[in-house]
């Protein structure tokens, strides 16, 4: 039983990271209307930014903020240079362009930092026990950061004027435009948030594991799965779906073996989509 609870906790922590990445994907999809394949590499960029920031400032917190800024900045740059010129074309153009952006970011990171793994120098601490369950302090911190990030994003989306405009554009871009909502500030805010959220996911992943130019790309499939499972364009759904995927992976492994760990998340995705094709929270949409 205790090992079950421990696996559950561990699944929630990795699920939150998947959820954050899924949130970034789903935000872009909801407003810019395409699947951003550069999300994974924006994560990596954020992690490298945080690594550099940490070694410059000596503080993990300041480094993290620098990484976050790097993620936001790169996403805005990608929007200005690549996605804005393509915005009136079919979503496929933007999707393909985003794969190009992903390759570009990864190649630049590879050239600048090399392919050797890098790690965050964190204090590793032994766990404490609560009713026999091992609780790892670092896991709590990661979960705390993830939850704080999610809270901030939802505050922006639901309690600020720009958030209201973003949701209006997500709901119906034409109607939003007719109602006098200027698209430019909305898009800049969107990309800044999407980039920053991806960066947080990348930084947390980097702290849990190691940082290499490929690390974010490897997370792209689970992130897409979370976005689809949550109902594309639905922020709460993406986060919840991420946690479900993370937990399902950890809990299923004692039964199906570890080689099929990755397959489990897709099995969950498949089952949900068979039963509920619009995802957990998605709306039924007519043909646009």
């Amino acid at each position, binding site marked *: 039983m205790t090992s079950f609870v421990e696996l559950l906790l561990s699944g929630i922590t990795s699920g939150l990271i998947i959820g954050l990445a899924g949130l970034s994907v789903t935000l872009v999809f909801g407003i810019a209307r395409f699947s951003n394949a550069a999300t994974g590499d924006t994560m990596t960029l954020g992690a490298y930014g945080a690594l550099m920031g940490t070694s410059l400032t000596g503080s993990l917190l300041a480094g993290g903020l620098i990484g976050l800024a790097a993620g936001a900045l790169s996403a805005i740059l990608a929007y200005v240079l690549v996605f804005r010129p393509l915005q009136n074309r079919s979503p496929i153009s933007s999707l393909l362009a985003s794969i190009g952006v992903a390759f570009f970011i990864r190649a630049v990171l590879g050239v600048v930092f090399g392919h050797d793994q890098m790690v965050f120098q964190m204090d590793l601490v032994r766990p404490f026990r609560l009713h026999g369950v091992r609780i790892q302090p670092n896991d709590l911190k990661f979960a705390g950061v993830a939850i704080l990030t999610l809270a901030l994003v939802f505050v922006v989306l639901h309690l600020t004027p720009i958030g209201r405009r973003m949701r209006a554009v997500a709901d119906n871009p034409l109607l939003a435009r007719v109602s006098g909502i200027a698209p430019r500030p909305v898009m800049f805010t969107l990309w800044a948030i999407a980039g920053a959220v991806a960066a947080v996911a990348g930084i947390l992943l980097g702290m849990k*594991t190691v940082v290499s130019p490929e690390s974010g790309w490897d997370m792209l499939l689970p992130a897409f799965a979370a976005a689809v499972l949550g109902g594309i364009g639905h922020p709460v759904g993406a986060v919840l779906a991420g946690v479900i995927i993370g937990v399902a992976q950890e809990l299923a*492994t004692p039964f199906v073996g570890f080689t099929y760990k990755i397959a489990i998340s897709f099995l969950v995705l498949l089952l949900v989509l068979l039963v509920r094709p619009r995802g957990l929270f998605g709306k039924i949409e007519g043909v646009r």
Partner: protein
Amino acid sequence: MKLTRRQTLASLGLAAGAGLLPRLALSQDAGAFRIGALNPVTGAGGPYGTGMQKMILAAAEAVNAAGGAGGRMLEIFAEDTQTQPQAAVLAAKKLIDVNKVQAILGTWSSGVSLAVIPLTNEAGIPLFHCSGAPALSVPPANEKKLGYRFQATNDRFGRAFAEIAKKEGFKRPATMAFNNASGIGNTEGFTRAWTAMGGEVVASVVYEPAQPSYRAELQKILDAKPDVIVTGSYLADTTIILREWYQTGEETKWIIPAWAANPELVKALGPAVVEGIISVDSISNEGSPAFAAYDAAYQKAIGKSGLGNVYAAMAWDMVTVLALAMEAAGPGADASAINAKMRDVANPDGTKVSSFAEGKAALKNGKINYEGASSILDFDEFGDVTPDFAASFIRNGEIKREYQVKL
């Protein structure tokens, strides 16, 4: 004249292509024997690849200084595998099709060698590699017997792990393997040798690369209460697993191959986490005259002791033994004639020699037996060698060798 963008690009491309032409023409020099140095300069093999490549160049220089092999000078074409099969295949294709190399030397990591060997087989040229996967010994990978392994097989690594585990008095080992030919080869080799000694493996796990967490895998292992965990792993996954293991608070010992339990690992995790880990590596033929020659060349090229890079010693031997086989096969010999002479110049019964120059002279009087820098370099029927192993212990952040293991 108004140029469209397409025309501009096309003309630029042509100009760039033209720039390459003279180099190509030069490299097709008739009298030379062309060798591809295909090494892991970047990627997971990065710490070793540069040294390997420089030793291939240095050994070729030594061969050429001795007047060449079989009447031909050696010419080296260097490429980077990036320690990735895709990049390695592209580079190998280029070496074979464009540079027309007649042998490829120094691939590292089993995934890379398994991807490259079909190409060298197809071209009918030898592949000398430092990879451990048992699959590289047998068909289909080695059906033409053109593959030679200068590193111990993972199976032999596993046997060395078992010897060390026995010597250290462990009773309840568990295994964790990265899901590829090399990782699983290590732990299966260990399990075979350990059960043959009458022992029992209490738990085993094969895990996937690039996961955000290995907690579930670890938990399964730790639930079996092992006293030592034997791994077939690489640096990145070992870093993640050990970090999570330390944070579970369990006290277990570890036996880890040295390509994962290296100074990078100590740097990544700090001395407290890695204290007491046993790092196992095959070791060079230290103390041999061939090793001394290699060591001097390594010092000159890299500025560090040759002890730190066992793969560079293998790369040195690759060129030397190939050149000796060429010399034995005589002028103008093709790949299969050279291949037929490999065991004749490296295996016992024959005058023991330690360098190309020495071997070239001794070949005039009959059979030779090259005793290499990396091992005594005797190839079995599969083209595999059996080096010695060493157990090193990490204490206070220092990796110190404590004893040798001979299989």
